[in-house]
């Protein structure tokens, strides 16, 4: 689920840390994609007339459709995607997972009610809430990606943490996910909306961790504490402290321990047995495979294999699958465009010289006012 309200907080306090980019600017970049997140996205979004796409036997194929075409779109834009799959969830997430299970049950009940009363809008709404990425979905997606020649990485635990590890080790340029916790795990660059459909015309949002930190005036450790206060997947947060309060408190006290020490814990009750220390540890030293041992290799797509896998039972159009395979093949040949960043050195970044000037002006005005006030009195 990520960090509650973090993206909004960043947009409010450190807008310079978010850049809107076009997908074509990422040519030649290797990007780690959080697979379960994108599969979920596809299951929700790739539908025809509100229903998921299915094979002859009624098995869902939305995730395959999404994975196939959106990956092709990335590859056509010169991006080299790596899909990272989740391993076992950490024990601390069980609480969150239980909550999710409860919510599903609720949705199921609501769905039944809606079906009885024939309320189509609610039926669709609750149907979507019931969407779950199953093991089989994952398996099929892995098989498809292999046929497409796209590398797959198995994370021992959380996929976001593994993605962040790949970025930190310089194996990939960025993490593509909608969840903000990749930043908490220390990924330098996070891309949102990268796997969205082209039709939505959403620009890709690029978050830079160092700009986020400098914009919020925090170091990485403090940032992790902030994320825990905002609400993460691993433990509860203090009731009554929203994003605004959270950033104020962390800026003032610099750690959760100090925050707890200084606030009125009767008014703001921390959850019982609040295990923020372990949550923090999960962010600092998550269980990940060493990036050094991971070899990323992009291969030629297996056209016949793709046709065999996707057409027939899964009812994909053979011509379109073959076309897709050709597109993948075409993107593999030829040269990549270089970038200037490697050749020239950044001398200085002028962060909004005007904004600074405005601040100076404000200060100057204040001084002028107080000065004027004093000047008037003797008269």
């Amino acid at each position: 689920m990520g960090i509650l309200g973090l993206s909004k907080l960043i947009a409010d306090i450190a807008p310079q840390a978010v850049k809107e980019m076009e997908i074509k600017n990422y040519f030649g970049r290797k990007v780690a994609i959080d697979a379960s997140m994108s599969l979920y996205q596809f299951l929700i979004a790739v539908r025809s007339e509100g229903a998921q796409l299915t094979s002859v036997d009624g098995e869902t194929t939305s995730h395959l459709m999404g994975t196939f075409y959106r990956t092709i779109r990335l590859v056509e834009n010169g991006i080299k995607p790596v899909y990272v799959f989740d391993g076992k969830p950490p024990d601390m997430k069980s609480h969150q997972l239980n909550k999710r299970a409860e919510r599903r049950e609720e949705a199921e009940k609501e769905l039944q009610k809606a079906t009885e009363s024939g309320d189509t809008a609610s039926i669709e709404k609750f149907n979507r809430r019931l969407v779950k990425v199953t093991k089989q979905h994952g398996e099929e997606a892995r098989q498809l990606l292999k046929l497409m020649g796209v590398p797959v990485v198995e994370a021992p635990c959380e996929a976001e943490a593994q993605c962040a590890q790949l970025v930190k080790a310089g194996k990939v340029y960025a993490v593509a996910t909608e969840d903000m916790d990749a930043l908490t795990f220390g990924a330098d660059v996070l891309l949102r909306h990268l796997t969205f459909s082209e039709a939505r015309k959403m620009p890709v949002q690029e978050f830079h961790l160092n700009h986020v930190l400098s914009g919020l005036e925090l170091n990485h450790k403090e940032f992790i504490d902030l994320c825990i206060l905002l609400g993460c997947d691993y433990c509860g947060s203090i009731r009554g402290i929203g994003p605004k309060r959270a950033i104020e408190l962390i800026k003032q006290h610099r750690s959760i321990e100090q925050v707890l020490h200084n606030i009125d814990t009767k008014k703001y009750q921390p959850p019982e047995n609040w295990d923020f220390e372990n949550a923090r540890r999960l962010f600092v030293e998550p269980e990940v495979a060493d990036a050094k041992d991971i070899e990323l290799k992009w291969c030629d797509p297996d056209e016949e294999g793709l046709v065999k896998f996707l057409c027939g039972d899964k009812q994909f159009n053979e011509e379109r699958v073959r076309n897709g395979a050709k597109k993948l093949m075409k993107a593999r040949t030829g040269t990549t465009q270089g970038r200037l960043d490697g050749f020239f050195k950044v001398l200085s970044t002028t962060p909004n010289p005007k904004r600074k000037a405005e601040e100076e002006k404000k200060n100057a005005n204040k001084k002028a006012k107080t000065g004027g006030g004093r000047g008037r009195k003797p008269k």
Partner: protein
Amino acid sequence: MFEARLLRSSILKKVLEAIKDLLTQATFDCDDNGIQLQAMDNSHVSLVSLTLRADGFDKYRCDRNISMGMNLGSMSKILKCAGDKDTVTMKAQDNADTVTFVFESPNQEKVSDYEMKLMNLDLEHLGIPETEYSCTIRMPSAEFARICRDLSQFGESMVISCTKEGVKFSASGDIGSANVKLAQTASIDKEEEAVVIEMDEPVTLTFACQYLNYFTKATSLSPQVQLSMSADVPLVVEYRIPDIGHIRYYLAPKIEEDDS
């Protein structure tokens, strides 16, 4: 107070035509010496470096160094309102958040002014190292524009290779392949039409046609263009703007895949 006056607005118009397809916004840095602009396109493949020297202006005054972030699309719209023979004056107060363009017709009968909002831009300044290039090619700018246009029909990228015999531009794609060879001009009667090659070492590099076609928008600024190349460094395409400065484009070469 900043004020810069040009007798012919056409220079500024052409400069803008030459950069507005590559950049959507850019900062004009003004100081005693003149106006400088340096910016990369969004994908960081090319860089534009523009210099307009103070002495090239009819009148130039810059009391305090100022940086003006401008939306180049808006600026281009404003400059389209000027006649080619109009005088143009750019004006801004210190710390202002707008810039004013004043156009005066040659007979002083029509005076129009346009005010434009400035932008808060966050820009990186890149240090461009002094480089000795293995090859420099000077050739008529119209010829270069023509070659780029012609070859871009054949493929997305173009190979420029410079040897003792001359310079060869080539492209290939689905419809076939194209090669254009230029030899050094034997006798230089008109300097503007000459092809001059200085070479220490032969160089072959591949570039994206799309960007070269953006660069050749500057063709009308100068009769000659100079290409400088060395192995594995960006290409420099320079147009000298007579009497006032130059515009330089840097373009990162395409590289062979190593690991994939």
